[in-house]
């Protein structure tokens, strides 16, 4: 009975841990919409994986990374109205994914992919998550200063010798990987919130980028714990419960901070 709960706790905490620092970069670089677009395209990956009978997780990672590279290309060509194009890309990939899914013979639990189903995470999925999160954490930590410098002023960073083009692609790819492995946990529609809300909460108290990253991980973990508890006792859907707790943490923090 407790096996699936243990897996759920481990998976949720793993994701929250990585989503903290990564979410900070998404907030600092105003990339929330990019995260949304990536997560919507994850569903396209699911559909293609099912139709072509490929490894589901690999297909999703591949599709997310491809969309990430496409977004980098769009970001560097400033002539396009980015938010409009992102909107088109996000929702059309979601729609194409849904249409393609209707052609598959296998019955899949669409709800689970859209809103997440942490309680049914399998051992294999947990391993994928562990691998993905470990990879992203290593990349983040080993490039921390460079990514930060690039975020503050890319041209200054470039003159100081950093390869800014590489950093831009790197950041987008690790977001893609996290989105791809996290899909099962909170679902494509809610992934961005797990990246952004804990970071926003941590921002209220942080005095340095590192504090904010750590605080985001912490408040993300609290949200996962709270969401799972609520789901356990009141039988609420897990993914949305986690996001609700994260949002509540933010609201309470903002109120406390505002009163000071």
């Amino acid at each position, binding site marked *: 009975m407790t096996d699936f709960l243990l897996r759920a706790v481990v998976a949720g905490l793993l994701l929250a841990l990585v989503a903290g620092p990564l979410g900070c970069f998404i907030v*600092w670089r105003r990339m929330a919409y990019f995260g949304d677009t990536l997560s919507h395209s994850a569903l396209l990956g699911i559909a293609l994986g099912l139709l072509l009978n490929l490894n589901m997780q690999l297909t999703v990672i591949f599709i997310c990374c491809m969309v990430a590279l496409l977004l980098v290309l769009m970001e560097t060509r400033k002539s396009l109205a980015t938010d409009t194009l992102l909107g088109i890309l996000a929702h059309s990939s979601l729609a194409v994914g849904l249409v393609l899914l209707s052609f598959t013979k296998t019955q899949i639990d669409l709800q689970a992919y859209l809103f997440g189903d942490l309680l049914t995470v399998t051992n294999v999925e947990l391993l994928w998550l562990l691998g993905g999160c470990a990879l992203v954490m290593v990349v983040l930590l080993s490039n921390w200063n460079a990514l930060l*410098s690039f975020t*503050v002023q890319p041209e200054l960073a470039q*003159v100081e010798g950093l390869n800014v083009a590489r950093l831009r692609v790197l950041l987008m790819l690790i977001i893609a990987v996290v989105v791809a492995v996290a899909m099962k946990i909170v679902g494509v529609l809610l992934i961005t919130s797990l990246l952004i809300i804990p970071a926003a909460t941590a921002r209220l108290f942080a*005095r340095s980028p590192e504090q904010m990253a750590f605080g985001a991980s912490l408040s993300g973990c609290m949200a996962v714990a709270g969401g799972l508890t609520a789901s356990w006792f009141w039988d609420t859907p897990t993914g949305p419960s986690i996001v609700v707790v994260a949002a509540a943490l933010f609201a309470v923090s903002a109120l406390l901070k505002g009163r000071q």
Partner: protein
Amino acid sequence: MDISTTTTVPADTATSANCIPQALLHLHAVDYHAGNRHILNKVNLHLQQGQILTLIGPNGAGKTTLVKIALGLLTPTSGTVNRSADLRIGYMPQKLQVETTLPLSVERFLQLAPRAAPADIAGALLEVGAAHVRHSRLQSLSGGEMQRVLLARALLGKPDLLVLDEPTQGVDLKGQADLYSLITRLRDSHNCGVLMVSHDLHLVMSATDEVICLNQHVCCHGHPEQVGNDPAYLELFGQAGARAMAVYTHHHYHEHTLAGEVVAEHVHDDSCQHEHAPHVLANPQLRGKDGQ
């Protein structure tokens, strides 16, 4: 399009570095197109160690583009860019807009420079006169403090060349003059070259060795006095430019209070090197006071 950009050339090792100032940067016949817009047209630029070179020109003249080409951030459509071997550049961007969501102290910002030791950071802040903001939030700085912090970051790389894009942006008039004299002091103490973009005609004229007046092409260039008398300069800047030159020429020997009164006039004797005529001509209203 012929792109023949060489990023480094072997330094002229034959010439003794002590007597002949080293050439730091040489741009030859640089063209730059963006789409079908011709932004720079056959621009030449030469900068030596210890020299301050200022780019002036109206908005859209291509000043920032030229600076970015000099830095290697942009590749020219044609023309050559030569930098001396192992040239260390300290860059001060036009503006630094840090997201309010990013909590960043001045110290942490300076730590982002590669290989910045704590002692270097303290030293650089002291040198630019911003030691007191070390622990302040970057977003809480005044315009002048921010520019000084950016200068400190540029100094951390021990530069041979400082590239400053509008170093006095968002700074009040008094602060602007202070910043220009700081830049001159930094040039002297680091013996580096300075390439800067400026809008402050009247202030910059006294703080620079050489001026390039840019409007897509080089309109005129030379010492501030030469440029000030050039018809191309007057055509580009009109009355404002002429006034700037007048302020520049009489900047040498006295200051005014805000009301225009002459504050301190030094005794004119044989040691005076300056030229009086252009000042008197350009400022007839002052003739009664200090004309001779």
